[in-house]
């Protein structure tokens, strides 16, 4: 609340009729009050921090911000290896394992709920980049062009100096404290509070916290999704809420939706092809990967984006190699927690199996082209 210019009598502001602005200070023992308030706040904060640490949260979990992405994007220069796509390649690849396997630490630029297209276009337009792009394909996103975090690229380009500085400062707190996670904020708690539903309204089904993210965006599934059955079920319900209506629309094999999906898929494959050519023209390369899924996602991906009309076509028309988890026994049998993402240990094991296959494929392709 704003304060008044007068401490003596009530008055309406006529500040510009006076050349002198007076700001009276209420007579109170301010120094003592300030010290006591700060000490009390610190005590409350200690309790708050301990509470969240006892409830699944840990320090060193960084918020997946535009600034964090922008920092990694700035590293994607020269012959760097870059991972792009949506949440599957984000959760299912462990950068440490990747580095230990082939001696190259990839840069993680995947964005949850987002088609790889905007990031690929950004890399294609960057003359300073001529490295390897591994594109994670989550069919409903890749072939629809849906980009939940599509604004990130433009926002990163326009990042203000104070935002960059604030990001560096904020990370220092994130390293030390668990309470910095967005899920602990009063706003989030109120947003998800179990208040009665108004008549005719459906339960709220926005995706909740699923990941623990390191400073370089190396990401793993949050332990609560793995170990808390109720939270895990909630995650599945959320996916079901978005996939269910899609499946409903595809019940009729003669539905015009099929034609629209095929048309959109072809358009996107052509656009991806154009960007791939730009990267290859500079000496870089682009390869594709399909990470594990099951349950409702198995249904929707097989129904709406059958292999021959989507994945196979993508590889053929862009003249690319790709690793589909269904083609390799070594890439199957992992624990997919909520139909779409691997548990942390499984992600490590999957990466250890996936990387050799990918590089072997690339070597084979290079050999073939050399012949």
């Amino acid at each position, binding site marked *: 609340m704003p*304060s*008044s210019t007068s401490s003596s009598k009530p008055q309406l*502001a006529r500040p*510009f009729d006076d050349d002198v602005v007076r700001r009276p*200070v209420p007579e109170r023992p301010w120094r003592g*009050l300030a010290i006591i308030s700060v000490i009390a706040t610190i005590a409350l904060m200690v309790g708050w921090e301990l509470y969240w640490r006892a409830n699944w949260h840990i320090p060193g979990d960084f918020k997946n911000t535009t600034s964090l992405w922008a920092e990694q994007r700035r590293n994607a220069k020269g012959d760097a290896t870059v991972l792009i796509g949506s949440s599957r390649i984000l959760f299912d690849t462990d950068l440490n394992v990747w580095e230990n396997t082939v001696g190259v630490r990839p840069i993680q630029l995947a964005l949850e709920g987002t088609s790889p297209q905007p990031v690929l276009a950004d890399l294609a337009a960057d003359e300073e980049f001529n490295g390897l792009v591994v594109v994670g394909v989550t069919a409903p996103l890749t072939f629809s062009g849906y980009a939940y975090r599509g604004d990130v690229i433009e926002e990163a380009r326009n990042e203000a100096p*104070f935002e960059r500085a*604030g990001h560096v400062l904020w990370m220092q707190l994130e390293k030390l404290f668990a309470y910095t996670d967005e899920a602990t904020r009063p706003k989030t708690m109120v*947003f998800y509070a179990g208040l009665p539903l108004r008549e005719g309204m459906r339960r709220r089904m926005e995706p909740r916290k699923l990941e623990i993210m390191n400073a370089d965006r190396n990401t793993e599934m949050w332990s609560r999704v793995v170990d808390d059955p109720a939270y895990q079920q909630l995650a599945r319900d959320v996916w079901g809420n978005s996939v269910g209506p899609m499946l409903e629309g595809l019940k009729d094999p003669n539905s015009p939706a099929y034609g629209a999906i095929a048309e959109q898929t072809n358009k996107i494959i052509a656009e991806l092809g154009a960007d791939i050519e730009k990267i290859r023209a500079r000496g870089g390369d682009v390869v594709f990967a399909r990470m594990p899924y099951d349950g409702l996602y198995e249904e929707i991906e097989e129904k709406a984006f059958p292999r021959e009309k989507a994945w196979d076509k993508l590889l053929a028309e862009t003249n690319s190699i790709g690793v589909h988890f269904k083609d390799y026994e070594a890439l199957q049998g992992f624990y997919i927690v909520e139909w779409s993402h691997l548990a942390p240990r499984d992600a490590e094991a999957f990466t250890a199996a996936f990387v050799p296959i990918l590089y072997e494929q690339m070597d084979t392709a290079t050999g073939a082209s050399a012949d």
Partner: protein
Amino acid sequence: MLFNSLTFLVFFAIVLALHNAPFPWRMKKFNLLIASYLFYAAWSPPFVILLWISTAVDWKVAQWIHRSDDTARRRFILILSMATNLGILGYFKYGGFLLENFTVTMAAMGVNYQAPDWNIILPVGISFYTFQTMAYSLDVYLKRAEPAKSLLDFSLFVTFFPQLVAGPIVRPSQLVPQFATPKKATPPQFYWGLGLITIGMFEKIVLADSFLAPAADGAFGAAGALAPLDAWTGVLAFSGQIFFDFSGYSTIAIGTALCLGFALPNNFLYPYAAIGFSDFWRRWHISLSTWLRDYLYIPIGGNKRGRIRTYVNLMITMLLGGLWHGASWTFVIWGGLHGLYLSVERMLREAIPEQNWFRSLWFKIAMALVTYFLINITWVFFRAQSFDQAMTMLASMAGIAVEPEKVLYLNEIVPAAIIIAGMVATHWYLRMRSMEDVIAAAPKWLIGVIWTFMLFMLMITQGSDSAFIYFQF
């Protein structure tokens, strides 16, 4: 940089340390000036050039005007200053709007004009510092004030970081003299300044961003018509959001300046307890309303040229006041509504003689609620993305919209309702009081508890670094 960011906290700590170091006063002013440029450059370094142009032009213009006795020459120089200031403002803020309307007009005349792309970024706070430097040249031209004697002091007046990007729009006579002699906050001023910063941050981060924005954004982000409860919640939440956002900024600015030993004027005085619209404008964005009064309404004749001309002058002033907020017809309508309210209020005051029961509490409360209701109608146009959306929202509020939808959950409605009720009650309680008086009389333990609560809420809310609404103006 944003007040509600870690960057600002570190920046301010450094500024405070330098300001309290044993340097000569002139050097401390240089420190403040450089800090202010850095504060502005933190958004986009090239835009600092605009501050330099504003500073250089008005510094010189005021001197030339002051030295000249020739009316025509003085007027010519003033026009030069106005053209520069308004030219910069017009180019960045209104260029796209003018181009768009020109294209529409051409199309209406059957001419297919293809406008070029207009991707100009609006420099933050440009409307605020442009009005501040214009006031300086106008004061000198109108012989209300003499030019500043020190370029350093004048530069600091234009650029002083606490109020640079969103006011209060300070008059030169209020701030320039404060730079003439050494200033340093006394311990009570410093701690009270920190208290004001806490209050302002709490208003912005906790109330506006965390608990009111979701309801306002949810309602105004909906594609179609809304159920009356959703529409009213959204509009009332926005009335709170914009107040806490802007009042929060002003309070942080005042507190920040006070920690350095400077006094800035109020920008808000519990506006939602206003009884009538002239009362509202004495309480809402005071530094803009008084600027418009002194530099626009009075120079075009004010209320000295007859009844009809008074209404016309009110309308012109408020329409331009609306346009000051942004290049959009919805802002013009917002200003037009305020002009209409002020004119009707004036008409009623002249037509209805004062009655004893006008002074009764129930009548005052009823009139305050009517005022708040009508203010909320104006906020619909202020917040809506288009005229059509505003009309749909008004129809939704009236319960006559076609196919209304429920879009807000109780999770948004309940916090918004509690905060809005609390805000209106608090405004009413403080209507004829000053917060300083209330705090001076409050028990110490209560002040400690409230301060701790606000600090704790700020710490756990953390702030999302979302920009202040008025930065876009």
